[in-house]
């Protein structure tokens, strides 16, 4: 699985990161962010691309598991 770390980045950078990564068209990605705006924006983007997303909170960070 393709795992990305977008902690410390503010929008729109985390979305730019996942957008670039998803050009590889894999079935699953994981991205870790540290703010709710990035969580919301990434969720909007991946749902729009036909993926599902599950968000879990871990030590103040948000882990987004993105699957086809």
């Amino acid at each position, binding site marked *: 699985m393709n795992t990305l770390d977008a902690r410390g980045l*503010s*929008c*729109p*950078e985390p*979305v*730019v990161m996942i*957008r670039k990564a998803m050009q590889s068209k894999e079935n699953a990605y994981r991205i870790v962010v540290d*703010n*709710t*705006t990035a969580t*919301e*924006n*990434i*969720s*909007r*983007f991946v749902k*729009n691309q036909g993926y599902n997303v599950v968000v879990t909170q871990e030590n103040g960070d948000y882990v987004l598991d993105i699957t086809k």
Partner: protein
Amino acid sequence: MGAGTLSEMLKDMKTPYDPLLLVGYDTADDASVYKITDDVAVINTTDFFPPIVDDPYLFGQIAAANSISDVYAMGGTPKLALNVMAVAKEMSKEDIRGVLAGGYDKAMEAGVIITGGHTINCKEPLYGLAVTGFVHPDKILSNSAAKPGDALILTKRLGTGILTTARKADETLVSDRLIQTVYRQMATLNKYAAEIMLKYPVSSCTDITGFGLMGHCYEMADGSHTSIHIKSSKVPVYKEALEMADMGFVPEGAYNNRRHTDGHICPCEGMPLALEDVFYDPQTSGGLLIALPKEHANKCLAEMIAAGVDAAVIGYVTEGMDYHIYLEK
């Protein structure tokens, strides 16, 4: 800063009573108004922000249009201004001159004289104006005086925050042509809409800026003890902003605005999330939101459209109900 954070921080700082202070910040209005004589009151307001466009001249124009707008929103005529500026060390003399020239030209267009100002060195550039205007004390427009039976007119298209965020992320996402249209709208003075508005018996007015359409509607409804009903399909929005919201280019301020008004907005079933995002989208130098008796709305709107203002009737006002804002189809 977000509306909620700011009002929390200011809550212990009460405005001292002064019978001549006609508008303070108790009603979250756009500017203060102080009565000088029975015929004249002075309006004071300021606004400044970091560059939102690369071109210094355009940035100066947008920042000035935005600062002056508060005077129009109060029903006044802007007259004097001071530059408020922070210069970063990487800025060239031409850059600095460009920003000031943009501000100067926009002020001239508004009939405003820039008489000086204050400039400091700072890590991040900033620019805006502190503006003084005048209004007849009986003709002040507050943002908290909407009345049941009013219609609501909005005078600029929404979605500029989302589009500038997307453009910042990737220049190919928003075409040059569209972004230039957006920049031109931001640099457009609310003067032309305001001059037409003042011919009508307007109840209440504000300008749409950082709190987005929803945040400013919330303030108007809350301050006037009314409910505001938005006909969602009638609100002028950049359709590309809807696409960019779906792509995840929603600015942080939009989420703050959503949180600040949470529980006060009755959603509309089946309304796309992207359209909601545009309604919460913070606008730079946005349009006027005008409440006026509905029998005058169509005539006022027709006059604005004839004058080239991108306006629409977007909703209406009722007595206060369970929610401050009702989103309708």
